[in-house]
């Protein structure tokens, strides 16, 4: 060994580079991990030999918190799971409650929910895909796509007043009908989005550099992905066409015509392509839902014990005041029962397992968090890959720390 390599040796704990082993911390606070994850990598030069993950840095005990919260106060907790697509979490929870109390919401509510949920999916996938671009060194697409995401957030604002942690909708429907400004903004968005999106698509999809960087990075086979419990776009990229929206339709998804894109290799490029196509399909669903919006009410009148009455009614009507009080104080009786309800979240099957003993709060509420379940495959996916591929794999899996740690 030469003198130079001996000098290098002092920088590392055990051995030096040049075909020898070193330990590297990727995270917990590293800009490339896009969240608080620690990976202790054992690397041979650029090549990863093994990795050990540590999770739980932002664990906030949501499942325990939920056991002390009245049912309608749990919706804000769900915001903070996958915060890139909060509306899907909110509505998944509301639908779980509606299943428990046995209420059929009007068709119009279903369609309104579909519009909001698909907008959320588009926003979620836009973040993921444009960040894959950033991690390969293509910042431009990211800046343009974040403008589109901003438009989606403006649409949320028109419906619920919030942007990131939306707390959108209520058990039994929506807090108010879509405003005139929402209609204007949505029409404009539907008309103009595809053009901008196509630009982004052209930037990356057949870009030689992008393809060289992403094809073969972090692959997983379909069987292995199923064994690990993958769901959502990551599973579909591996070639398995499982989508909750089709398998167990909720919120009238059976009314819409859309396809489920699947990949073949399960690598970063396939995950990118699947998400790109899902964005197009989501736009198609939004268009169908918006154009065929049924007449009717934006909330179900059958659940006054859960659906907060309007302020005007609270001040003028006795019943509304009573219900308002009962809802706010969390004194509404609920049936004893056990429900599992799943929705197709941004990252896969987002499930709610609720055990109710009839009390004011859930007896037990468990979230099926897709990120938590598929992130355990990460060491297997990056073993034998380079460090830069590991970063790409992480961003293409779209692991969201809030959902992972709950």
């Amino acid at each position, binding site marked *: 060994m030469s003198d130079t390599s001996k000098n290098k040796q002092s920088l590392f704990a055990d051995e030096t580079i040049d075909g020898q082993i070193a330990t590297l911390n990727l995270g917990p606070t590293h800009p490339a991990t896009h969240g608080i994850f620690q990976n202790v990598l054992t690397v041979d030069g650029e090549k990863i030999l093994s990795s050990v993950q540590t*999770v*739980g840095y932002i*664990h906030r*005990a949501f*499942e*325990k*918190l939920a*056991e*002390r919260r009245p049912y309608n106060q749990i919706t804000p907790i769900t915001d903070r799971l996958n915060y890139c697509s909060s509306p899907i979490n909110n509505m998944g929870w509301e639908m779980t409650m509606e*299943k*428990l109390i046995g209420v059929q919401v009007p068709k119009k509510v279903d369609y309104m929910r579909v519009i909001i949920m698909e907008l959320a999916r588009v926003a979620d996938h836009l973040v993921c895909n444009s960040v894959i671009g950033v991690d390969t060194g293509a910042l431009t697409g990211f800046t343009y796509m974040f403008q589109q995401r901003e438009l989606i957030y403006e649409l949320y604002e028109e419906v619920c007043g919030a942007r990131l942690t939306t707390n959108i909708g209520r058990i039994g429907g929506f807090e108010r009908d879509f405003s005139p400004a929402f209609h204007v903004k949505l029409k404009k968005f539907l008309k103009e989005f595809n053009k901008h999106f196509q630009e982004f698509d052209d930037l990356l999809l057949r870009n030689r550099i992008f393809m060289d960087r992403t094809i073969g990075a972090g692959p997983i086979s379909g069987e*292995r992905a*199923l*064994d*690990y*419990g*993958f769901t959502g776009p990551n599973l579909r990229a591996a070639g*398995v066409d*499982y989508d909750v929206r089709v*398998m*167990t339709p909720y919120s009238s998804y059976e009314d819409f015509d859309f396809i489920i894109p699947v990949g073949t290799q399960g690598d970063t490029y396939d995950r990118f392509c699947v998400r790109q196509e899902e964005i197009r399909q989501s736009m198609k669903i939004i268009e169908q839902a918006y154009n065929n919006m049924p007449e009717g009410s934006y909330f179900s009148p059958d659940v006054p014990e859960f659906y907060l009455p309007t302020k005007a009614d609270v001040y003028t009507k006795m019943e509304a005041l009573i219900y308002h009080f009962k809802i706010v104080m*969390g004194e509404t009786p609920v049936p004893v*029962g*056990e*429900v*599992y309800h*799943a929705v197709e979240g941004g990252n896969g*099957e987002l*499930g709610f*397992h609720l*055990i109710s003993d009839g009390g004011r709060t859930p*007896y*037990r509420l*468990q979230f*099926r968090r897709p990120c*938590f*379940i*598929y*992130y*355990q*495959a990460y060491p297997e996916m990056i073993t034998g890959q380079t460090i830069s591929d590991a970063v790409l794999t992480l961003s293409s899996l779209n692991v969201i720390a809030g959902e992972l*740690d*709950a």
Partner: protein
Amino acid sequence: MSNLTNEAVLARIQEKFGDAVRNHEEPYGLLTIEIQADKTHDLIAWLKTDEVLKVSFLTLIGAAHFPNDKGREICVNYHLHSLVNNVRLRVRAFLPIETPNIQSIIDIYIGADWQERETYDFFGVIFEGHPNLTRILNEDSMDYFPMRKEYHLEDATREDKDDRYFGR
């Protein structure tokens, strides 16, 4: 997709496992089977390979604590899904709180790894045969299982509490 009904699934499981199936119900249409704790692993393994049911996807592992149910305090739930038949199934086993031991299913589904660690972390269920049954979301030095019912969060309806001590 076939039209496999819950009755057919139940009949097939009962035929194979007989008395080990302690109880069954269908809350909100989801077939729930209570199985003898030591047969859980066998049932889940058999479900995966059975050529009719093909229940080969593990959706979720979780637990719940029922402190008043003596000898059956910890309930371990396995949500399974037959993607071919599109039938969901919940398998559960009850364990006594003194010895909350159940066989790990990590050899059947690799995805059970973290979910079993999480269940151990929060409820103290010991999954026998798990290669690395350590805490996952909580810190390692924690010496209790926080999701058990004896650990209360602050009760919003309490009146015996002096707010001055809580900075309000």
